């Protein structure tokens, strides 16, 4: 399995604390790669660094072997990297259709209508809401809009930051099920999600973050079994500067 | 030689008036964290109150009466400014950042527009202040000027010391906490209404005091003296001084020296074409320089950019 994404010793400061610290990570092609960790462990910083929204202080990022460390978020978007930010971050005063139009400004003018149309195929409920301002949608509908804003650009690497935030587990599972169908075996997905029940299956390989460092890359059930004492001993094995 | 002394003493008085005014803004902006653009309104209140009361001086009245009226006019000026300050505490709690700036600007500009349109206050031309200290000329002028200079420097030093002590007191710590993170501070029981009341009183009061001294010393007050630009300049000194009392005094001194220097062709060093150009373009050069300084050190010349202190 060739690797889609390689991070080499990437460090990004975020305020003073919840940054990421010399992270080295390889994400296999067309895999669903969960990222686990406490709030403030650096999950969002890692995803935003990969998407180009935060500039790393040091280290290199390779996408399909090409160094994209210096590229901005817009250029990475063109290369096929899409991110759905934590907390949905919709353009709440724009209508649903305007949100979609804004999301496809990146594409050539000819492809935009078909891309917008595909959004309604992924989540048909949105068609009835297209004239409504995004802020007035229900929690589930807002999450659907946030997801289609990225999906309709057919990204090759999809980054999801806590997609189940604020939703009842059954609703999150139903919505994300649609995403897994679309991306299985075709799109590489990196998802930061503490609620592991919404993941496509239980036996995925992911990584656990603690204070901006990678504790381990292993199957999710094993990562879930590590408590703070185990993390302590694991990190001791590697030189850490507390 | 007397001319040089006169020049120095006069500028010393204006410098200390500016320091007292800036100390007031340090309390409003530095401690209370209020983005103020209207502090020149408080100074205008102080100046016009002082001018008004000074007019009651009967010609040739006894010096004791003059001294009493002088004290009365200062108290009235400061009191009026404090009243103006209290007026703004209400909105200051509800409005944030930019909107508070616009509200204080509107307050000051309304005040100045009203003054400019009421004949009783001299309208556009302004009021002459029957200076209670005899405007002696010739040899008698220096001692009078000396006492003025001494008094204003003492008051300026007192203002700076008071602001410094306020900063270190428990009230000062509470004000800084409220400025760093208002919700966290209020969740710890810090009632910002009372803290704002106190800091507005002191801030506006100092601005009013500066207004009184300016009225008495310059002998003339007019709406133009309290324009929007003058207010912005003082806020600039406070920002360049890192929102601290001492830092602001240095910033005031530096810019004042620069302004004078440019005006006098670098104290007579540059004569001829370049000198004229310098004087001619003085304000443009000063504005450009201050923009550059701010861009380089937005939180004050001495504070490193890392140490953000922003209301």
């Amino acid at each position, binding site marked *: 399995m060739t690797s889609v994404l390689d991070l080499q010793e990437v460090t990004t400061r975020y305020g003073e604390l919840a940054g990421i610290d010399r992270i080295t990570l390889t994400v296999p092609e067309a895999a669903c790669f969960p990222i686990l960790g406490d709030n403030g462990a650096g999950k969002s910083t890692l995803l935003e660094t990969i998407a180009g*929204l935060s500039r790393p202080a040091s280290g290199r990022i390779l996408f399909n072997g090409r160094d994209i460390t210096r590229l901005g978020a817009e250029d990475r978007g063109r290369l096929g990297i899409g991110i759905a*930010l934590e907390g949905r971050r919709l353009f709440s005063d724009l209508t649903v259709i305007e949100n979609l139009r804004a999301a496809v400004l990146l594409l050539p003018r000819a492809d935009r209508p078909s891309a917008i149309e595909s959004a309604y195929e992924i989540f048909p409920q949105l068609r009835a809401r297209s004239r409504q301002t995004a802020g007035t949608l229900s929690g589930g509908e807002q999450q659907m809009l946030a997801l289609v804003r990225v999906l309709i650009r057919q990204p090759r690497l999809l980054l999801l930051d806590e997609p189940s935030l604020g939703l009842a587990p059954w609703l999150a599972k139903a919505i994300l099920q649609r995403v897994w169908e679309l991306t299985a075996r075709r799109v590489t997905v990196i998802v930061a999600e503490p609620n592991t029940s919404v993941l496509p299956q239980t036996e995925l390989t992911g990584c656990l973050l603690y204070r901006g460092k990678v504790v381990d890359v292993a199957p999710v059930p094993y990562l879930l079994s590590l408590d703070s004492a185990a993390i302590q001993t694991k990190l001791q094995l590697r030189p850490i500067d507390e | 030689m007397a001319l040089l002394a006169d020049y120095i003493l006069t500028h010393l008085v204006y410098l200390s008036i500016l320091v007292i005014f800036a100390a007031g803004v340090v309390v409003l902006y530095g401690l209370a964290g209020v983005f103020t653009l209207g502090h020149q309104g408080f100074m205008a209140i102080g100046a016009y109150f002082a001018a008004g009361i000074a007019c009651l001086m009967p010609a040739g009245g006894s010096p004791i009466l003059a001294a009493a009226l002088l004290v009365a006019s200062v108290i009235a000026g400061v009191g009026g400014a404090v009243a103006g300050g209290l007026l703004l505490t209400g909105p200051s709690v509800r409005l944030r950042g930019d909107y508070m700036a616009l509200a204080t600007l509107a307050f000051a500009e309304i005040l100045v527009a009203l003054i400019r349109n009421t004949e009783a206050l001299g309208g556009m031309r302004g009021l002459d202040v029957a200076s209670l200290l005899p405007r002696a000329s010739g040899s008698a002028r220096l001692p009078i000027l000396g006492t003025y200079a001494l008094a204003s420097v003492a008051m300026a030093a007192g203002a700076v010391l008071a602001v410094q002590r306020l900063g270190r007191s428990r009230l000062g710590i509470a004000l800084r906490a409220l400025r760093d993170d208002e919700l966290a501070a209020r969740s710890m029981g810090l009632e910002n209404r009372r803290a704002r009341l106190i800091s507005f009183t002191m801030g506006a009061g100092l601005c009013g005091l500066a207004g009184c001294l300016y009225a008495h010393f310059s002998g003339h007050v007019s709406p133009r003296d309290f324009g929007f630009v003058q207010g912005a300049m003082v806020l600039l000194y406070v920002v360049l001084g890192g929102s601290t009392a001492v830092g602001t005094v240095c910033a005031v001194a530096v810019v004042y020296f620069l302004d004078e220097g440019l005006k006098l062709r670098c104290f007579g060093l540059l004569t001829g074409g370049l000198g004229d150009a310098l004087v001619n373009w003085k304000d443009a050069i000063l504005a450009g320089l201050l923009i550059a300084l701010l861009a380089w050190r937005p939180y004050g010349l001495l504070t490193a950019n890392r140490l953000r202190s922003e209301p």
Partner: protein
Amino acid sequence: MSYLLTQLGNGLMLGCMYGLIAVGFSLVYGVARLMNFAHGEFFMVGAYGALFSAELPLWRWGNGAGATMFWTLVISVLVSAASGALVSVLVERLAYRRIRRVSRTATFLVAVGASILLQQIGFKVFSASPRGFPDVCTPVVVAAPTLSGWLQPSAGLPCEVAVTSQLQAVALSPSGTSAVTFVVLAFAVWGALFFVLRTDTGLAIRAVSIDEKSARSVGIRPQPAIVITFAVGGALAGIAGFLWSLRYGGVQPLMGFIPGVKAFVAAVIGGVGSVTGALVGGLLLGLLETLSFAYLPGEVSGYRDAVTLLLLLVFLLIRPLGLLGRQFGEAA
């Protein structure tokens, strides 16, 4: 009755001019969270730009047939828009770009500095005496509130700007001037609305205003959107400057300050960040001023500026979001 109509007409036109300036101020605040105090100066630059183009020898006023008049106007509008836009973009590039993200207070002070700098350059390049369109225009004593203002104890005290003069546009009869003003205003207002609400660039600008990080995540570059916003804002203010000087004359370096403040008031009343809000706020303010000037007794109308600012204070206290504005979360 016709007096009321003409006053309403004047009020509408004055309102549209305030609206045009307010649109620029509002858009810039929306997309960059920046109170552009130098925005009034783009209005002045536009006036000088149009003046410059109108004085070009090959387009003398009034001697050619209607066509020359038409082309002169078109050129003047274009030049005033271009000069306003150019200076606006320059100010963004040189003064605001770096400081904007660092500190709000410093950014405001830089804006004041830029405003003073433009006024000073205006004085040196165009001299203080007011100039009207190549027609007679009553001279008015003018001087700038110098930077150090009352800092100079001895030097002559700076004097305040007098009330602007009335223009007697010989070549264009008053009704001709208002007709032209009305057409150009209508075109500019429609253009502003169309640009922001209908075009893709307008959509990008609105997206950046609402949530810059989210806009970047969907591939919109904030920096070009901000530059375009400054350019459009500057152009609209420039056009307003040209029309103002066409109707009221008195093109002098300080002409931008008071209309600039009025535009801030209009933007806040209408709701900062919304284009329609800025236009509505401008119209309201223009009508209020013109009617109060026309109907209130003489000495009271002297308080016109105070009334405008009082309106600002009232709106700030009771409805800071303005009529059509919305809460600007610090999402950026």
